């Protein structure tokens, strides 16, 4: 494999990790843990594929994927915000439900093909050696992920909206006494987060590997959740993390001729996720992290008014 091709596949794989991670960051920053990423991603992947196949328009498929992600996230929002239920169990049921739903949505589309989103070379930039073909000759969703990172960073850390979201995630009671509608903020963050997961799922079937097979996400949604913690709920580190995991993902294919059993190579992304998660969870000084970039302290803690 040429180095440009490897670089290009890393960007493709990383985009899939990046977009849902940004969604999960938004969700968790508001104090809600949504473990349903896998379910939202796979359902929206199926929905996006089905709608693209039926309409012939990939952008309508992408919108359908985002809608499915948002609707599924709404279920989690209702259970965990309005009814104050255990967020872990609610998230698990969302993952299980989404897996089942994807089977139903994709039932008639196994083995069909669609025209994938075409790369749009960016004039001027795409001619730069190496970087041009790797980063600037991609489809529109990859560019969207480039833009989403600074946008989310700006909203979270440089605007009043961001302060509101982070306060709700760190100290909902204080936010409430300041007259912030905690419930509304959390609802919006969870639903927007779900729509980003939907965008990630749509990216998978509409741009990355344009076909639908059952269980095609293969647990990558869980890597997204781990990545959110490893990135310390920050969009910029999430960008770096997603590219690192994209690299692991692509490298496992180039190791396949080396004689190491394939199963061990396939373990690489999961083992590295586990290693990072353990290292971060045990080594990092929480107080320091909190001072520098903040951490949603109220994550998983139900909020009851008054």
């Amino acid at each position: 494999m040429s180095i440009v091709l490897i670089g290009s596949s890393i960007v493709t794989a990383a985009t899939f990790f990046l977009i849902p991670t940004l969604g999960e960051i938004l969700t968790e920053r508001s104090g809600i843990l949504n473990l349903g990423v896998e379910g939202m991603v796979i359902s929206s992947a199926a929905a996006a594929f089905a709608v693209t196949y039926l309409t012939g328009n990939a952008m309508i498929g992408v919108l359908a994927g985002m809608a499915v992600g948002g609707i599924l996230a709404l279920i989690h929002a209702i259970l965990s915000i309005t009814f104050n239920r255990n967020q872990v169990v609610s998230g698990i049921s969302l993952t299980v439900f989404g897996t089942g739903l994807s089977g139903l949505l994709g039932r008639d589309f196994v083995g069909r093909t669609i025209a994938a989103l075409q790369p749009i070379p960016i004039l001027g930039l795409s001619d730069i050696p190496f970087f041009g073909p790797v980063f600037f000759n991609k489809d529109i969703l990859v560019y969207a992920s480039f833009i989403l990172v600074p946008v989310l960073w700006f909203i979270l850390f440089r605007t009043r909206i961001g302060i509101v979201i982070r306060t709700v995630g760190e100290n909902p009671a204080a936010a409430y006494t300041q007259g912030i509608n905690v419930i509304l903020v959390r609802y919006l963050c969870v639903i927007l987060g779900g729509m980003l997961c939907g965008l990630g799922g749509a990216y998978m079937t509409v741009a990355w590997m344009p076909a639908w097979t059952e269980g095609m996400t293969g647990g990558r949604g869980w890597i997204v959740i781990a990545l959110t913690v490893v990135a310390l709920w920050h969009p910029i580190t999430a960008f770096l993390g997603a590219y690192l995991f994209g690299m692991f993902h692509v490298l496992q294919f180039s190791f396949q001729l080396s004689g190491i059993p394939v199963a061990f190579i396939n373990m690489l992304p999961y083992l590295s996720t586990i290693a990072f998660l353990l290292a971060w969870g045990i080594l990092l000084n929480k107080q320091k992290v909190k001072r520098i970039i903040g951490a949603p302290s109220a994550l998983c803690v139900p909020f009851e008014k008054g």
Partner: protein
Amino acid sequence: MKLRFIEIKMKKRGEKPTFMLSVIIRLLSLAMGLGVVAALFLLQGVNPLLLYFNIFRVAFFTQYGLAETLSRMIPLLCIGIGLSVPFRAKIDNIGAEGQFLVGAIAAAGVAFSFPDLPAVLLIPLMFAAGFALGALWAIPVAIFRVMGKFKGADVVLSFLMVFPAYLLIVYLVNGPWKDPEGWGFTQSPLFPVNSQIWQLPGTRIHLTILLVLALTFLIHYYLVRTKEGIPETKLGYEINVVGENPEAGAAAGINFLKIALITMIISGGMAGLAGVGEVAGNLLRLRPEISTGLGFTGIVVAWLGGLNPLGIILSSLFFAGLLAGGVEIQMAGLPVTVIDLFNGSILFFVLLAEFFMRFKIEWRILK
């Protein structure tokens, strides 16, 4: 909440709901979960009433189906009962699937290493190994739950441990334990005769069912049994306190790490036992796809059963029936994964039901 014509209030219930009320609320949640799935089936052009009736008929009213239901119940009950223990202490173990898989690996390892041991020695040894490896797979989660700095990270860890377990089986059945006569199937050879658990002739109900029922009773007796609403054993009491109010538990000198370790060892170990029973009593081979999500269904089983042993026996019977009658789902032209729809949507409503056990809704019409 105040709308224009109607005022809705949520009020905390003063006392715990009666046993009857909690059963009714749970059954109602089950019915609503089934209702949502029925609506989705209708959209797909499948008659849900007919399908439900067929699943029910096959699972409980045919000889083959009933045997299959009881056989499916063994791992579900074992996993569900085990999971209910950490759930009571608010430790969310969602990695039972992985603990189940390593239990199966342990069984195969012991069986292939000592094929000549007599069955009375070999089979207990396999169960012991399965329990140990399952527990070992769960211990990091317990430690991380107590020592880790970030909330929720332990839950993610418990899940991520599923993948290495699965891929380890993929490696083993493609490498050291590959079936030489497998015709390209990724599976291990048949388990040695001495390691096969006795089955009721003509069925796949294996003796593990007695072990599981005994353990269910033990867990009820030592951890759950209550007198006037308070657990009778010290450990059961401590688990409840940690689950309901961790600060109070710490103030009362309860060691959270100890409780986390005990509950997770029980849970991981029991998932491991389920894995041993499944490969040595039912499938008689190790394969990567031995589980088909039993670890997740176990979560639903535990919650639908109200984390209570008797309830879990009934809910495991229900989900076992669903798995056994699942052939009907495929006959109706739907993919197998739709079984997950039942699991997910029932769990949604069970969660909702938990809410209505603690709160009641009052409403009045405004003039």
